[in-house]
């Protein structure tokens, strides 16, 4: 709610009477009755006919087309994660190949590196992968490509 104060709309019985007349004027479209109410009825009639401008006739169709273009297809949980799960066999295959064939010559620096550094690098690479998977734009691009 607003931080505005909650002022009384009518501070006197006379103002309250006019408030009631203003509201009562909305109950009938006819300009009749006591003169004090007739003015408010005239105002009500003016306000009812006071529609400023208009939206284009095909506005709803235009917006619906734009919304359709901007929205991604609604994917279920399984479909959304399918591209990610597809990477798992590739990762496992790479590990199996490394185990069977050993490190390639260009990776000799790795075997020579300190064990602590290797553990730290391993966790660092894993963290980057997890963050990359979790990042929505990356996931969306992947989902769109599938």
């Amino acid at each position, binding site marked *: 709610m607003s931080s505005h104060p909650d002022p009384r709309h009518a501070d006197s019985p006379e*103002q309250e009477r*006019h408030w009631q007349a203003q509201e009562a004027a909305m109950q009938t479209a006819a*300009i009749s009755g006591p*003169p*004090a109410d007739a003015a408010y009825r005239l105002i009500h009639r003016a*306000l009812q006919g006071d529609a400023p*401008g208009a*939206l284009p006739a095909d506005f709803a169709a235009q917006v619906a087309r734009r919304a359709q273009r901007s929205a991604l297809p609604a994917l279920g949980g399984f479909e959304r994660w399918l591209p990610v799960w597809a990477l798992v066999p590739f990762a496992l295959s790479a590990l199996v190949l490394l185990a069977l064939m050993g490190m390639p010559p260009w990776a000799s620096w790795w075997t020579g590196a300190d064990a602590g550094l290797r553990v730290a690098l391993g966790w660092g690479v894993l963290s980057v992968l997890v963050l990359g998977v979790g990042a929505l734009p990356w996931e969306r691009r992947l989902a769109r490509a599938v």
Partner: protein
Amino acid sequence: MIEDRAMVQAVLAGVPGAFEQLVRTHQRLTWHILARMVRDPEDARELAQETFLRVHAQLHQFRFESALKTWIGRVAYSIALRHLEKKKLNLVSLDIEPEEGAAPAWEPADPAADLEALWADAQVRDRLHSAIETLPELPRTLLTLHHLDELSIAEIAQITGLATGTIKSHLFRARARLREQLGDLASPARHACTARF
């Protein structure tokens, strides 16, 4: 509310034409809010598109705690407010300034005035509409929502986030000002209606 639920579920399920139907149902109220808050019709049209695109993107968050029309109205109102803030327009300054020390003095405009004849007079109608146009944005919007869209004060409070007493105060003072100007119309030679606030 049942219609709201069916409509929302259809849109979320991707039923063809459902969102277009939702827009068509609620575009009138949305337009009234935006056109009243934002004076430029081109800006209002762009903001109307932005409103419904946001509705489309956030519809899954709608919890049916209010009517769909007031939820959409609130989206439109907040977009209009942000637009006004960008243009450095302070909404507080859009209110009718009360006249300091002016005691309310209520008199009927002119008991003898034939108001039906006045309404038939195009010039009078034009002047009354011009008087509405010169009202500040906020009270003008509230008047439109109350009189044209026939929303209750509670519904207007849901849309605007204003307290009901604040809304009543705006409505009261704006209608009193119009009535004052109507007094000038009914009796140009003298200020018959001296509703001051």
